[in-house]
């Protein structure tokens, strides 16, 4: 295994494009090193992006925030401005593993590892976050929901690398939230994860909403029917019940060691409702 720590995005793309054999990008390494340890992955080349200055930055941009691919989740959690604008995304990012994991893991890494249970992904999908991809043919921008295609698989072409994720600005009276279910209080992989983002009109009626579900299908899903259930309502009891039902209906889960199909379907509805209520509270608070 060869290790490289390029100083620029171009150099990283160059190394990736020319790589013979298996190449992997190292951001926080909290998934990659586990794969190395177990022997499930034996890359010939590992490219550490933490020496690329723009990848390590978290900056305000156009009323939103750009999160570099090498920014650890802990840094995200310590940033009051991001927490204020996108509390749901930050709480999702801060649920990934332990304090120790938070010191290394990045949301872009979480995205590119392409686990269906990645905590930050449904929250970022609900936030309509955009990933910037650099490659041999230049840059492109992709909705975060389009990066993962299946467990462990991404839409990135050879030589491509996600350099940052952009969290957009948002109108007044907006709020978001992410909730997940795990058997313990910490350290587990999500059995179900739900991200909800919504905007209220001045009259308190929901004008726009996005609901995304994790760990209930081969990749994180946007639950459009669930969002529709609350748009145009004040999130009354009936709308929330419809939201929960739609969220459950959107699930296409499997039985595995972390939970059963029926459990995931039921709990997706429960959490969608709770996350919507939390997002609503935040939207009203602004």
């Amino acid at each position, binding site marked *: 295994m060869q290790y490289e720590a390029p100083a620029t995005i171009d150099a990283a793309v160059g190394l990736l494009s020319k790589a013979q054999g298996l190449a992997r990008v190292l951001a926080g390494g909290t998934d990659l090193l586990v794969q190395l340890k177990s022997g499930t992955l034996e890359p010939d080349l590992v490219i550490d992006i933490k020496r690329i200055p723009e990848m390590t930055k978290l900056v305000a941009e156009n009323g939103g925030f750009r999160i570099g691919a090498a920014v650890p989740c802990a840094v995200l959690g310590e940033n009051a401005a991001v927490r204020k604008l996108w509390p749901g995304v930050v709480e999702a990012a801060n649920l990934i593993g332990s304090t120790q994991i938070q010191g290394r893991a990045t949301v872009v890494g979480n995205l590119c590892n392409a686990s269906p249970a990645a905590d930050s992904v449904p929250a970022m999908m609900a936030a309509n976050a955009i990933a910037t991809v650099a490659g041999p043919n230049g840059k492109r921008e992709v909705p975060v929901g389009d990066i993962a295609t299946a467990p462990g698989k991404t839409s990135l072409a050879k030589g491509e690398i996600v350099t940052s994720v952009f969290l957009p600005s948002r109108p007044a009276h907006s709020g978001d939230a992410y909730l997940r279910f795990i*058997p313990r*209080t910490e350290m587990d992989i999500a059995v179900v994860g739900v991200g909800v983002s919504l905007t209220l009109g001045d009259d308190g009626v929901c004008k726009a909403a996005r609901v995304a579900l994790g760990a209930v299908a081969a990749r994180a899903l946007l639950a459009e029917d669930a969002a529709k259930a609350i748009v145009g309502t004040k999130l009354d009891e009936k709308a929330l019940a419809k939201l929960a039902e739609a969220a459950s209906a959107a699930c296409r889960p499997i039985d595995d*060691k*972390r939970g*059963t199909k029926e459990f995931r379907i039921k*709990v997706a509805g429960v959490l969608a409702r709770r996350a919507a209520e939390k997002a609503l509270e935040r939207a009203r608070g602004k």
Partner: protein
Amino acid sequence: MPLDPATQKIRAFDQVGTRPLRPDGLDKVTGRARFGADATAPGMLVGRILRSPHAHARIRSIDATKAEALPGVKAVVTSKDFADRSDDLRDILVNIMARGKALYEGHTVAAVAATSASVARKALKLIKVDYEVLPHVTDVDLAMEPDAPLLHDDLITSGVEPVPTKPSNIARKIEFGHGDVDKGFAEADLVVEREFKTEATHQGYIEPHACLASVGSDGQGELWVCTQGHYMVRDVCAQLLGMDVSKLRVTASEIGGGFGGKTTVFIEPVALALSRKAGRPVKVVMTRDEVFRASGPTSSTSMRMKIGVKKDGRITALDALLKYQGGAFAGAPVDYGGMAGVACYDYPNIRVVGYDVVTNRPKQAAYRAPGAPMTAFAVESVIAEIADTLKLDPIEMRLKNAAKEGTKSAYGPTFGPVGLVETLKAAKAHPNYKVKLGKNQGRGIASGFWFNFGGQTCVSLNLNIDGTLALAVGTPDIGGSRASMCLMAAEELGIPYENVRAIIADTSSLGYNDVTDGSRVTFASGMATIHAARDAIKKLCGRAAKVWGIPEEAVVWEKGFAKPSGANAGNFEPMSLKELAANAAKTGGPIAGHYEYNAENAGPSFATHVVDVEVDPETGFTKVLRYLVCQDAGKAVHPSYVEGQFQGGAVQGIGWALNEEYIYGADGRLQNAGFLDYRIPVASDLPMIDTAIVEVPNPGHPYGVRGVGETSIVPPMAAVSNAVSHAVGIRLTESPMSPPRILKALGEQAARKAG
């Protein structure tokens, strides 16, 4: 106050019962303490193990020629490097290195020693094993079916008359009891019968098995290893390798947890065989994945429990059927389930029938009160259901039936002085028992028992020139026992605690000691320490007598000084330990106290636990709100570490109750061999664990000490289950009571109500 049978005096303690800092503490908070994987040796090689990917397979052949040819590989061993045998150690031999068949996923098939970890990894891939995959079985009930895949062609069930003619997966049938259960049930006003299942759990010690072996061509060997019993390791390894016991010296490293899981051998004989073949030291350290797949988890069980009572709650009969699988070899602790798991109550009529069953899982090892928590789960659940039905206070119901001095135990003998009643009363008096519960909350009570053991023990106490003492103990210190030993030595000698330094001696420096198990160390090594101190005191008094020129009997020992026994003995200034030590060379040479014995009469320990939980009815998530452990310690030598045993056992039991389980796929492979998906409790899962130390002195120990390490894991599974059942209004009968299981039960209940 405990009676000291040796002196027939009632005594107060100066030091026992205080909470000094532990002698090994500084090393452990600075990172200096040396654990199993922390040792190195000149020219050391890295040993790695090749394991079966199949749950059950015939090994047609193993070709290691390519691995042996890889540069950097210094030795490859397989079953051919160990002589076959037909004695008691054969199961261990076959477990540490598969012979003919791989009996579970993770079963050792071969091992290599190489100059680096990466070379060793490559070498493993070059070993070609030709497997014929066989049908497998991992479930205890399925393994007992007549057409189940057979693990051993020669396994005939023992304990059955007439002797079966055909082999099966049932290794043993056991039976305990007395009275006439049919008559007992006929007399009952209420009979409750339920079926229970518990999944296998792992001890989950944070330190993986590790050892450093060095065997020379002169046949002499040394082994550094994290183990609960280095004498056991020495004796077993020497036999498996055909070495003289005297030629193998084993040193116990600091041990990073064991809970029973380090009372046998896994990698140690393999490391020694590699070292012998390579002619260099070899270090073998298990990965966490290997620990889960290939060390010794506990049994999974399937049980039926039937209890009859009179209207007032008095038990008339208990009838139980227990099925325990113990992995690929006989030895599931079903007998302890049948004895200890039901031991809390006085049964006029009782029958327990149990089966020890083999399956394609790793060979079970002891886990803290082995076998008892599962049966206790069944007994205490049924007791709770009866108390609910009869509207009896659960503690009153238990008090009515509690085993006490004079009760004929479920397994036969009559109990001496025991403390169950005292723990129940302590629980009832505790503020936790009076807290009002809210919505979706429930309280659970359960009691538990463990026998406690004594065993072979040997200590040596040597007086140094300055009056301090070196105490050599042979039982690895797994949770602070060196502090307790120093306290007891200091108590006897009447000197400051700091003046005694305890170490765990290696196998060549001290006589044989049984494994640190059965909650025996503070009891047995402690009693040996007391006797060794008394032996030293006798010699010290003899020296003082010589100096004073008076008879030995005219000298007494008091608080660190030799004194004339009275005015008639003579008028001499008391002689200090320091003075006696300084003059030792002139008065007859080194002074030491020794004691070797086989400790008996350990005296059982009972406990009662009270837990409050809150269950989220929409997700099935259980939060533990408060937890109380009341347990009999006889006499708490170092109360902080006694509380620590109570708290640690309780939390392991909470994990077993709620989330810990071995999950097998249809392919017979373990699905969750890591701390990510084998979910032991983390700090944020728990409240503080409240404790109440009850002290009913054990007449078998000079200070009244009882072992405390194991009992604390017996009640929690039942206590938590009872609390969850009260919170959700459904009786749960399977562990772990994980969220999907609870939510499913809630859904079924809702469907029943709707239907």
